[in-house]
């Protein structure tokens, strides 16, 4: 075999080793191979995962709770134990994240349980955290005419955010899906530990 062929073969093999160890084996060993076929997120929450990915929430938020010797994630109340592969077993969107400009969200559905809070927050985070860097996601909401009483899920907006008189703001389908996803983020199964922060 000539040198160039050896080099080419070596490169292909080296890449194959990486693929084997970091893609194929983990898929066999940590993936959905087990019996739990019913655990996959579905409906709105699954769509919401895609909204989460598409809007790049993962560029500021992680979804990994590290063990106590690798960070104070647990002490901060971001989860009761470290994240395990089984927490992600059935999911298609794995937003582990790269940067923490905001809190970890792997367990946010336990901390914040009210969809209206999420809507208000996503519409204008600065009302809730003045001066925060979290961007506003008001393009996920719709402004509709106000006929009679406000719709049950119209946003409680006042001051700077208030819509023009005669209008109200309601979450659009993407915002609903996103919030359903966030509410479903309870990666530590209930009963695994008490979790009052």
């Amino acid at each position, binding site marked *: 075999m000539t040198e160039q062929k050896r080099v080419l073969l070596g490169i292909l093999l080296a890449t194959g080793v990486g693929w084997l160890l970091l893609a194929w084996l983990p898929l066999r060993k940590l993936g959905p191979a087990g019996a739990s076929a019913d655990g*996959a997120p579905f409906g709105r929450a699954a769509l919401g995962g895609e909204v989460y990915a598409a809007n790049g929430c993962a560029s500021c938020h992680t979804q990994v709770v590290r063990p106590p*010797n*690798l960070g104070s994630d647990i002490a901060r109340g971001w989860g009761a134990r470290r994240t395990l592969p089984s927490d992600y077993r059935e999911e298609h969107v*794995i937003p582990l994240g790269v940067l923490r400009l905001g809190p970890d969200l792997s367990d946010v559905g336990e901390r914040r349980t009210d969809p209206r809070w999420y809507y208000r927050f996503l519409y204008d985070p600065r009302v809730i955290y003045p001066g925060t860097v979290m961007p506003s996601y008001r393009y996920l909401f719709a402004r509709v005419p106000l006929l009679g009483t406000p719709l049950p899920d119209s946003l409680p907006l006042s001051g700077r955010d208030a819509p023009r008189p005669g209008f109200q703001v309601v979450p659009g389908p993407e915002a609903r899906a996103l919030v359903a996803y966030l509410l479903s983020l309870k990666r530590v199964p209930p009963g695994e530990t008490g979790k009052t922060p």
Partner: protein
Amino acid sequence: MAETLESKETPVKVSSGEVDPSLRAPFLWLLGPAAVWLSVATILALLGSLKLVDPRFLGTWGWLTFGRISPAAFLSFVYGFGIPVGLSAALWAVTKGGRLPLLGRRWCLASSFLWNVGLWGGITGVLAGESRSLSWLGLPTFSLPSLGLGYLLSAGWLVAALVSRWEEASLALRFLLLGLVWIPWAGGAAALMLHDPAVRGVAMGSLEWWFNDGLLYAGLGAFALGIVYLLAPSSLGRPLAFSGLGRLAFWTWALFANLAGTAHLVGGPFPLWMVSLGVSSRFLLWVAAVAVGVGFWVAARRLPAEKREWDPSWHFLRFGMSSFLVAAGLGALLVLPAWSRYVHYTVLEEAQLVLFLYGFLGMTFFSLLYALLPQLLGRPWPSPTLSKVHFWLSSYGISFLVGLLAVGGLFQGVGLDEPDLPVHDVIVLLLPFLRSAAAPATALLAGHAVFGLHLLWLILESGSSRRGDEETALAHADIEGVRTP
């Protein structure tokens, strides 16, 4: 088919500086759009950092939300600028500085067309919210066929030519081959797996990071190292020292770049051995990097005096190599679990990425462009001042950007480790650094704009005067002489 080749040690004196005219088009088709993508990437990056100055800036427009433009900026830098320049380095190498024909060069045009169409679609898709947030795999599905086909159309010919015109022991060719082959192999495997509905769970995470680090180290990093070896004879006056060590470094690089990605997953939902494998691989990559660096500096010690004055190619190359060594060292040291609790998920890691992307890859690629374009167009760069301005703006921009992010990242990391300090206060600590980072980002953009203008000037000048003063250009090219490694 073995061609008779001069020994690696004796640089070939170019008999005629003229590039085979049939190769002009492939080069320009690769490099022209690359320059456009470079500016797109920088503008997006600058917008991203302005959004951290004030999140309300252009805030109501979903297309420009922070979470979309920051990946779009990285993606357009890597896929729009990095890969085409890497391909042109390979083209330069296999045609021996443009003097040998390339069989499939017509396909290069189609390839460039497909690639750029795919990428425009892809980046638009990311901005429109079609991405799946998979870092370097984040381009939307519909753009992948076009990108893949585009890549294969040119890389296929290049690999074939590279293998048939192989030079014993040429490290440049090895690294270029690694880049050429790794990207379609891994990219194809990753894309296929990610679109298989049976693939679920954390394996997608390790797959993503295999590809991320692989693309940076074994894909683009290999291209850039290939460029270093390729340019050394003309830029340093001699090839890099210690070629045996270089070969060892090459194999270390080819193997461990594939395993390093999991280092990022420390603390994540992965078995311990995967993370430790990644950490150890990062250290071995550092050794390989220093091995290349030693060869570089030993060779550079004997630099001919006129290079020390002002030679853009050499200056960019030197900055690139320094960044490379620092980035590789940081890449190893930062992932040690012992202090990853203070540095993981902070902008300090982003500082390392910026140093690698803009400092090493970007600057090395510019070094190639400064060496290649004058020979391609048969004219010297019109203004040394502009290239100096470009160099100083970029090098200061990158240094300050990296410095600010690194120091800010330390504050952020120590703050996040303090469980009683609310996240909000941590970010308030960090914000001054993020905000002032907009200034170096602007300098970087200005540097790239200067380069773009300079390039335009060069192209216009060469176009208008090609008929007239071929003589002078030839004379100059003789001095600059391409020397193949």
